[in-house]
Every structure is written in C-alpha cells, then in structure tokens.
C-alpha cells in the first residue's frame, strides 16, 4: 500500500517541548482542529533530506489547483460516505436500511472511479508518492471484484430509480399508486406570471428540512411502494447480503487519511495567503552554506492578526557562509520574540516537507530544535529557578549537534546582570563549540559581537518617535532607507508596485494571453 508521507521514523504522539515556546501548539490546533490523529504527523519531523524532498514534491502536486480540487472533493465525499455507513447501522426500518447501504456503496464507487479518472486526466503528477497512489488506485478500480461491485450497484440503483408513484391524500386516507401523468402544474403557474419576472428579486424558498429518519407514515408509504414494485426490492436485499462486509479498500482508506495532512495544512496556508502572506518551498540545505528565509513571519501571530484583517510584518533571517549565531537586540516589544519564533517555526515546518511562511528560503533538516523562552514573570524562588534553568539547558546542550537549532529567548533575564553575562557567555561558547546554529534574543549587547561567526540583528525603532515600532528586525548597520519609504513599501506604494497593481488589475486577460 503506497504512502505519500514517507515517514522514516515512528510517529511521535506527544507534543514536542519546543512547540509551546514557538506557538506551534496554536498552529497545530488551527490546522488540525478536532483531528487529533493528524496532530502526531505534525509533531513527527522527517530526518533525511530525501524524505523531505519527496514530501515537498507530493505537496507541490497536491497544491496544484486542479489536483487540489479533486482531492478536496474526494475527502468531502469520503466523509459523506462514512456518515452514510453510520446511518445504515442506526436506521430502524429494514427497507430504509437497505436503501442507505446502497447509497453509501454508490457514493464510494463513484468517488473512487472519479478520483482515478480525474487524477489520470490532470497531466503528469510529479511526485513518486502521488504517482504510486494513482497506480494503486487504477489497478484497484480495474480489478474484477470492484468492477462487479460497481455493476451490481448501478443495476440496483436503476431499478429503484425507475420507480415513480403517485400519492393522494384525502382526510385520513393515503392512497399510493403508480404514476404515469407527466404534467407539472408549476410550469403553468410560472407562465402566467412570467412577465413580472424581475432579475433583482429572487425569492429564496426555504427547502423543507427533512430528517434522514422515517416516520411511520413514510414507512407505510415505502412499504406500499415496495408492494407495487416487488422485484427491485427483492434484488436489493440479496445485494446487501452479499456486500455487507466492509467494502472500502484499505489502501484507499489510508490515502484518505494521509492526504488530509497535506490538505489541512494547505487550507491553513491558503487562509493566510488570502491576506497577502507568502509561503514557499525551502531549498534543503545539505551543506554548510547559506541558510535563509526572506519575509518570514510567525504563523500563529499571522493567524491571530488575520482574524482582524491584519497581517504581521515579515522579516528576513539570513546566516551566510560560516555564520552560526544570530543575536537579536533592541528595544522591548519590537518583535524580537516573534522573530525568534518565526525562525524556529520555519525550521520545523521545513523538516515536515511543507511550505514555510516566507517568500524564499533555504533551510537545513535539523535533527533537533531546542528552545528556552524566559517567561518574563518574576519568580519568587530565583535561585531555584536558575538552577532549574541551568539543568534544562545542560540537558539541551548534551543532545545538541552541529545539525541542531537552539533558540534562547531572554535567557537569564531574571538574574543579576553579572550572573547573566557570565552564564550566558559560557553557554554561548558551548553552543559554538558544538557547531549548532542559534538564535539568541537578549538585552546584553556585548553578545552581538560574541565571536566572528556571530551576526548582530536589531529591532528597529524610529529616532524621532521611539514609541512607534515597525516590528522590523534588521541587520546592523541599517540599510539606510528612510523610514517613510520603508513604510510606503510595506503598503505596496512604490512607483513600480503601484503601476504593477493597477496594470495587473485592469488587464487580467493580457497577462494570460502572454503565457
């Protein structure tokens, strides 16, 4: 049975420690709301560049609008089918039970056949994973067992669908008979009033709600209909007998499970993308060279802001060549923690083989992501807390390798400055010795020049108005761009961008024609 996940390790069912610090727990809950089984897939990172790239290819296939539509429909119908099967178990009247069963079976047959036809029709799938699934499904659909099932299902439906009956109600007497009359009184009425038809008035006649279960009057009517048409109902009974055991193929069921991992993440991405936020597939860094994400953003924050129709400010994280450690300093509330979370998030998402928040990225497959976020709350037992912190950090450092990412946020900020400086320097030296990459958010500016592999980043403030924050994290020295133009740029109001925006909006066809 083919898999599109390429899991190269056991699934992790417990939320990793860094999820909470990076607010990835919030992201998980948004992406997989009410879908606990899938959360484990979000916890479980892939460990090799190959597995990551294979998944990226699957995601690229799934992301294609046409394939996307097919798969969305597939999962929707699959869920409908499951609820029909559930209904079969819970329905009281036997005739109705049989009819529900037929419905579920028909839904299933249709769905699988359509999936194969549509996927095969959509040109070349690029990923091994999706190609294997398609191949598997094609063989299944062509198999004798499935063909027979489809044929019998269709015949049962035709027989039952051909039944028309007439109903007359007078007082308390209900009469059921066969129906040959083809008139439709409604058309006569429509014709009479046709000249008043008015485009701006559409009457929304409420569809009468109908519970799926039957009442005894309906059951009696169905019973009379079955008496008028004995053969189709007899055939239906033996069909149900024959296929009563599970008819859903395990391979199809597995695909249904796995594909939702991709679809759910895609939906989440799409919700943010509709607010103008970009996601990208990171290039997987297998050597030591540049690591970067441009215009990266914190997905949890983006999700929160988007509810209010706003978007977060994107930031660039770049480590060139031998650069190993980014030290972020600057005033409070300037977006430093958000920046650190963003860096952690993109590293984790990258190793899930999914697109990361940002315009362009090149990222490694980390073996570990370690975080230590100071809560900022003053602790009543400073000494005890410091000891706990140090123990935790020790544990982190023991497992750290050159392939790890360590994120330290305001570490030791609740101890004395002298202690903080001393302890911090020891720890930074250890991280440096391990060769791990690190993001360190701190108020201790000396660390910004810790060694020659350290990059200094600063959260930007306005000299004339320090209370205003841009949430930009910049490599010092600053780019020299004026603040106002930066702001204009953020609003897409540079000369070029305006022309592009007006041009592209007014000539949608021209751009299409030029392809």
């Amino acid at each position, binding site marked *: 049975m083919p898999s599109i996940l390429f899991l190269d390790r056991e699934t992790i069912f417990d939320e990793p420690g860094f999820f909470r610090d990076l607010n990835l727990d919030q992201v998980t809950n948004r992406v997989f709301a009410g879908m606990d089984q899938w959360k484990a897939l979000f916890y479980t990172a892939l460990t090799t560049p190959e597995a990551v790239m294979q998944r990226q290819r699957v995601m690229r296939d799934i992301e294609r609008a046409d394939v996307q539509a097919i798969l969305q429909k597939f999962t929707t119908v699959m869920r409908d089918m499951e609820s029909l099967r559930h209904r079969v178990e819970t329905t009281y009247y036997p005739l109705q039970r049989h009819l529900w069963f037929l419905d579920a079976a028909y839904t299933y047959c249709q769905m699988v056949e359509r999936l194969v036809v549509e996927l095969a029709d959509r040109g070349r799938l690029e990923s091994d994973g999706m190609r294997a699934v398609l191949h598997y499904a094609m063989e299944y659909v062509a198999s004798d067992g499935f063909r027979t099932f489809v044929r019998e299902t269709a015949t049962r439906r035709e027989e039952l669908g051909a039944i028309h009956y007439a109903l007359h*109600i007078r007082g308390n007497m209900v009469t059921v*008979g066969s129906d040959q009359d083809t008139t439709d009184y409604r058309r006569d009425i429509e014709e009479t009033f046709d000249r008043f038809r008015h485009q701006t008035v559409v009457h929304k006649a409420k569809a009468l709600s109908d519970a799926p279960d039957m009442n005894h009057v309906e059951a009696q*009517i169905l019973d009379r209909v079955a008496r008028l048409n004995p053969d189709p109902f007899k055939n239906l009974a033996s069909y149900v007998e024959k296929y009563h055991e599970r008819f859903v193929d395990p391979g199809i069921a597995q695909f249904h499970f796995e594909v939702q991992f991709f679809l759910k993440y895609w939906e989440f991405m799409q919700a943010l993308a509709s607010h103008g936020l970009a996601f990208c597939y990171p290039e997987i860094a297998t050597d030591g060279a540049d690591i970067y994400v441009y215009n990266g953003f914190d997905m949890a924050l983006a999700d929160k802001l988007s509810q209010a129709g706003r978007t977060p400010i994107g930031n660039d994280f770049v480590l060139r060549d031998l650069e190993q450690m980014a030290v972020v300093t600057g005033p409070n509330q300037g977006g430093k923690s958000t920046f650190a979370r963003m860096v952690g998030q993109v590293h984790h998402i990258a190793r899930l083989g999914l697109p990361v928040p940002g315009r362009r990225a090149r990222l490694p497959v980390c073996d570990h992501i370690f975080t230590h976020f100071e809560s900022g709350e003053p602790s009543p037992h400073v000494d005890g807390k410091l000891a706990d912190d140090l123990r935790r950090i020790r544990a982190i450092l023991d497992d750290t390798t050159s392939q790890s990412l360590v994120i330290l946020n305001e570490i030791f900020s609740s101890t004395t400055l002298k202690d903080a400086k001393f302890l911090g320097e020891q720890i930074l030296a250890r991280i440096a010795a391990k060769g791990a990459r690190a993001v360190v958010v701190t108020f201790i500016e000396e660390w910004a020049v810790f060694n020659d592999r350290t990059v200094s980043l600063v959260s930007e403030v306005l000299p004339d108005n320090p209370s205003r924050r841009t949430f930009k994290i910049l490599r010092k020295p600053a780019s020299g761009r004026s603040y106002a133009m930066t702001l204009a740029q*953020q609003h897409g109001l540079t000369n070029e961008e305006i022309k592009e925006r007006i041009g592209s909006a007014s000539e949608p066809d021209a751009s299409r024609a030029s392809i």
Partner: protein
Amino acid sequence: MRVSLMHPEQAFDWRQPLPDGTRDLAKDMALQGVIGVMAADDPFVTQVMERALLCSLQDPAVIRYRQAVLADVLAHPQVIQAMYDLVVETLEQRRHHFWGGLASSPSSKLHAAVDLIGLMGENLVHLRDVARDSRALFRSEGLCAFTLRLDQDLSDDYLNHVKNRLRDLKFKNGFHMGMRLGRGGKGAGYVLKGPEPRRVGWPRLARREPSYSFHIADRDEAGYRALGDIRNRGLHDVSATVVQAAEHIAGFFLQLKAELAFYLGCARLVNHLRDLELPLCVPDPAEVDSSVMRFDGLYDVGLALNVGRRVVSNSLDADDVSLIVVTGANQGGKSTFLRSIGLAQLFMQCGMYVPATAYQMSVATGVYSHFSRMEDAGMDRGKLDDELARMSQIVEAISPGSLLLMNESFAATNEREGAEIARGVVDALVESGVKVIFVTHLWTLAEEWYRASSPETLFLRAERFRDGQRSFKMIAGPPLETSFGADLYRQIFTQG
C-alpha cells in the same frame, strides 16, 4: 415587466453595496448634506440617491438617457408624483399583508400570496390607467417606453386570466402529486399535478390500478403531522412559485419606487437651487478615453446649500491634462475647489444636472478621494501609516481612466519624506492613466514638477491679493513657496 427609467436595459440596483472607497469619497465630498436635500430625509430615498451618486454611470449614452427622463420629470412633476404615490400606497398594503416569514408552511404561504397578488393587481390597473392618460406628454425614451409597456403588458384579457388562476390555486378539492424514491427511501421529486377536478367520491388516482391505501388512526397525532408534512412538500414548489410571483410584482413596484424616487430627488434639488437662483447646466459627458476637462462657473453645491446663496465659482479649460497641482494660500478655497469638481463629476455620472454654467468632462471609470485626516485613526496606527493604508486601498480599487482628488496627502510626515512618497505615488498613478488633482503644500515637489514642464501637468494656485485678501478662486500659475500660514495667523490673531 421592466421599469428601465434609469437605464435602457438594466434595472437600477439600489441595494448594491457601495464600491470600495466610496465611504471616504462621500465624506470628503460632504455628500451627506447634498443628499439630505435631495432625499428630504427619507431613508429609502437616501439609500437610492447614495447608490445613484456613488455607483457612477460610465456610458455617456446612458447618462443622456437619464438627463432626458429628468427633463420630463421636471416638466410634468404632478404625473410622476401621482405614480409615486400609487406605488407607495401599494407597497404599504403589502407590508400589512406579509406572509408570516420563513417559518410558515407552504400551504399558508400559498394562501397569503394568492390574496396579495389579487390586491396588487387592482393597483396595477390604476397605474396602467395613469400611464395611458399621460403617455402623450413625454418626450424621453425612458418614460415613453415605460408607459407603453404598462399599457401593452397589462391588457384586460391578461388580467382576467390571472384572476382565474388565482381561483384555481385555492385547491378547494385537494390536489394530486407524483414522486419517486429519494434518498433513504423517502419521497422525492414531488410534482404537483394540479387541482383535483370538482368531483365527489373516490380520488382520480384510485380508479387506476393497482393501488394501495391505508388510514391514519383518529388519535394518531404524529401521523397527522407527518401527513401534513407530506402535503406541504407537495405544495412546496407551487407555493414557492406563487410567492415568487407575488414578490416579483411587489418587486416591480419597489423597483419603480426606487427609480421614481431618484428622479423626484433630483427634481427636488434642481428646484431648490432654482429657488436660490443658482445656475445649473445639463453636463456634456465625453467618452472615458477622450481626456476632456472644461467647465465654467463651477461651484461647490454643498457649500452653496449651506450658506443659501451664490458662492465663488471657478472655470477651467484643461483638455489633455492628466495632473493638476494646486498650491497656495490656506483657507484659499482649494478644498472647496476639489469638492466642486468631485460633486459635479458624481452628479454628471448619475444623470443629474451640474452646478455650473457649463460642464464638459470625460466620464471617469471611478472617482476617488484621498484627503488628509486630522483626527486620529486608531491606537496602533500612526497617521502616515493610516494615510498610506488608505492610498493602498485606492490603488487596489482604482483603474485607468479614474479621477483621484488628493488633498494635502502625505502631510503627516516631514516634507522631504512626504515628497518622496507623493512623487512615487502620483507619477505612478498618472502614468497608469489616472487623472489626478492634487492640492498640496509639498512645495519642493510641486516646484520639481513645474520645472519638468510636462504639457499634461497644469498648475493652479489659490488667488491671493497683495493685501492678503483671497478671492477663493483658482488661477493658473507656478507653485508658490509659502502657504500663507502667516496670513491666517494674522487674520485670526489680529482681527476682532
């Protein structure tokens, strides 16, 4: 049965959402005061006037179509008023006769709708008679065609036919329906076959064989409810159709009300301005791509209504100009000048007459305004950020051929930065085919544009005499460095 008094083919949609950015535009143009006079504070008419003014026409032919109808309305106000009164009365009756909302059953809705159609039918006859009597008076294509349609579509024969139908729909002897097996074996595809013929005894169905009957026991309340439910399903479609027909007829009245309200609103303002002896002209709209901009004696109608007399007016001859830069004295009438153009353009593009002695303009694909706002826009947003956000929304909505009125944009930062942004924005808009009128204190930028001496840029400034007095008129001339804030200071601090 179309109304089509505001457009030869389309029904005027007075419920459409206002286009992006028009809320700011309405505010900047002080449209509320003008609409207040037109609508005489009637909320329905206000809604209609807002839509008519802010959802501009772009086809000069349609603009002329409305201008012609307006001329007829002004010439024969009593006929139009009579129609309007009849329409209002009908809709009032309908309001008292509503079919109990969505919750009521198809059969009770059907009864209510049948009654209502009967009622509205009587007023249709009255309306037709008014149209018949007044047809010869009208000259405009819109009113001539409308009155003719009423006369032809509502013949006596047709109205009799409707009466018979309404009688059948009461289903005195029950009805008979056909269906098939739906999901889960429940009935589906209910089709009403028609009323049961007037006959005593066995239903017509039962005479065909084979058939099976059963009875609901007398005390089986659930059974009766289930039966009522099935009956309602049978009636559902026909009920919906009849309700829809009633809605359509009411919709016709409502549409007519909206379109007549528009003209009556225009007429109210025209008469008001005539009483004040203020000039009005029938504007001459030119095609979108024509680049015509010429007017005489143009004044800010909102201001004139406020002060109740003649106010300063301006003239301009600026064909082929794509950017007008207005500089000069504070309190010199620059904002008024911008408003007078914005309002005139909105008036012209809704079919209304224009407060000027002559007005010839290309139709704009959209009118937008970007006025600096003095009040604080919110806690977490700086003024410049807010201005930029509004400009970004405008850029999102604007298209080539639009008109943008900018008033002191980007004054929320220092001049160097403001100019840097404004240059990029205005140049890009003009190059994209947007016509921009820019009132600004960014003198360095204005000066720079002036030196570039593009034939498509026109420079105006608020006139100011040597003694510091202002005429409130805009005159052509190079940008002036000072904004005369000192004047204002002197005026406020040395007088009185």
